[in-house]
């Protein structure tokens, strides 16, 4: 089964290069954001946190290509370091919610019965409310901060993954190769990890890609509202929220962090859309 995935991956790379501009642009954008995040200390010319009040509110110039904020911090450096926060939030939240969603969804579809009923009902109830509202309520009680953002977003983001993992598990469960694996004495765990999961990977990868994007937007929204990552940590949403106060005479403070978010999310969306065309042609994951 893994060989199958590997072939698909090879085909994917071929496809990216040759055929699909969406995938190509998406891959370039996402890769560059990742590289910026990894090499942030090498790229950023200044410290993202140290204040320099003498140079506050400078519009973009040679010394500070994107200008400075109200505390004289170089915006370019802050945006570069902000990529780390955004990607960390996106990846950790998505990892957490994928593990939660895949485990619950696969179990629910594979085992059926009472387990299935309970999980499906919880899932439906969670889907019935706006995610961010839920996250806001959780953060309002636990307090703001990066760690609490991970928890709140992770707890509210697993529902779609769970639904897809469940429906894939349901459809794979009846296949002959699963029966065969059971017949030769494969344990539940082995059947699940070697036979059921690899066959549900396609749609799950698509969902995870799009999920990273929506987690990043959610974090930015929470930080914009003052409920997320707290200053002086450079988070794009937090920078926008500060920039809002100075929109009338220092518009660059809110322009550039927003562009950074836009580029990242655009990249992830294009990548997700492109991957969907390849890995999930029947489009189970459409519109989510």
């Amino acid at each position, binding site marked *: 089964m893994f060989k199958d995935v590997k072939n698909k991956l090879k085909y994917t790379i071929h496809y990216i290069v040759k055929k699909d501009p969406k995938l190509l642009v998406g891959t370039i954008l996402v890769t560059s954001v990742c590289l910026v995040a990894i090499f942030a200390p090498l790229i950023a010319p200044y410290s993202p946190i140290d204040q320099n009040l003498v140079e506050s509110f400078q519009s973009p110039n040679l010394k500070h290509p994107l200008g400075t904020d109200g505390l004289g911090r170089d915006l370019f450096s802050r945006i570069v370091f902000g990529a780390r926060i955004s990607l960390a939030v996106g990846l950790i939240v998505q990892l957490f919610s994928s593990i939660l969603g895949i485990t619950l969804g696969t179990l629910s579809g594979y085992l059926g019965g009472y387990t299935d009923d309970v999980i499906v009902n919880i899932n439906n109830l969670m889907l019935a409310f706006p995610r961010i509202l839920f996250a806001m309520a959780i953060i309002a009680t636990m307090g703001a901060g990066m760690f609490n953002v991970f928890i709140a977003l992770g707890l509210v983001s697993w529902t779609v993954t769970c639904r897809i993992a469940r429906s894939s598990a349901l459809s794979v469960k009846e296949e002959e190769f699963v029966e065969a694996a059971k017949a030769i004495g494969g344990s539940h765990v082995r059947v699940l990890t070697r036979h059921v999961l690899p066959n549900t990977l396609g749609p799950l990868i698509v969902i995870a890609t799009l999920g990273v994007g929506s987690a990043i937007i959610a974090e930015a929204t929470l930080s914009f*509202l003052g409920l997320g990552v707290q200053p002086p940590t450079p988070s794009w949403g937090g920078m926008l929220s500060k920039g809002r106060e100075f929109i009338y005479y220092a518009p660059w403070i809110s322009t550039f962090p927003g562009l950074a978010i836009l580029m990242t999310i655009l990249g992830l969306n294009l990548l997700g859309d492109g991957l969907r065309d390849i890995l999930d042609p029947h489009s189970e994951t459409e519109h989510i």
Partner: protein
Amino acid sequence: MLSFVARRVLEMIPTVILLVLVVFILMQLVPGDPAMMVGDPRAARDPEVMERLREHWGLDKSLPVQFFTFLGKLVRGKLGRSYAMREPVVSIIAERIPVTLRLAFSAILFSAVFGMALGILSALNKGTMIDLFAMSGAVFGISMPNFWLGLMLIFLFGVILGILPTNGYGGGDIRHLILPMVTVGTAYMATITRTSRAAILDMLNKDYVRTARSKGLTERLVISKHVIRNALIPIITILGLQFGFLLTNTFVAEIIFSYPGLGSLMINSISRRDLPTLQGCILVAGLTFLILNLLIDVLYAYLDPRIRYD
């Protein structure tokens, strides 16, 4: 139809009870002594005063008692008094709801009209520059954080051009509605554009469309009667699925444009630690969302009779 609506309303009840329970539990998890927040900081040093405060707000009872007191009050439409404004939460919220609903509904209208128009246009001109332009625009619209869009609109229309007000409700003046509406509606519009394009392309391949054409109907009639009418169902599904987004975006836009709606009330009450108001806001927002979903389901059943008998 009536029995369908009745059934959907009954199905909502467990969800509503769960909502109330979750809100109650969340409020219990808030760290700190609520009595401290109510009182004057100087009073906090006087245990007797604090005791009286606890008694007055019912904080000395056990949790289950507090929950049922809470539930009982809710049923009678009481949400308690705001710590910060010393007014009944119900009347504060009742003042705010029309503001939020007006913004949300105008954003829905804006995005549905323009989104469907763009979607239909690009589906009927598939593969042309119009299509490419509309679809690229839609991807941008979906990827753009709406609070950033709001700030940029303020900068463009308020600061550079100076033609639109960027702050406050303006007593319901329509000009104050335009920028928030666009801010809330853009991402929604982009989703609708994409969905309606896909739905219409899907319908164009259907047998009954070919039949309609071959029996000599004008293209105009085929598109309007057979294609668009049927494409409405997936479009409305997406409208419904994305309500959560819309509500969140409305809340954020209220903050950006200092709109006195439910969203800004909720965010402010988080920072003021005004628990009764926060609790009321979450309950009302959740309830609004459930009711909007109900309306979508009813609309859905109206458009597709098969659903009513499911």
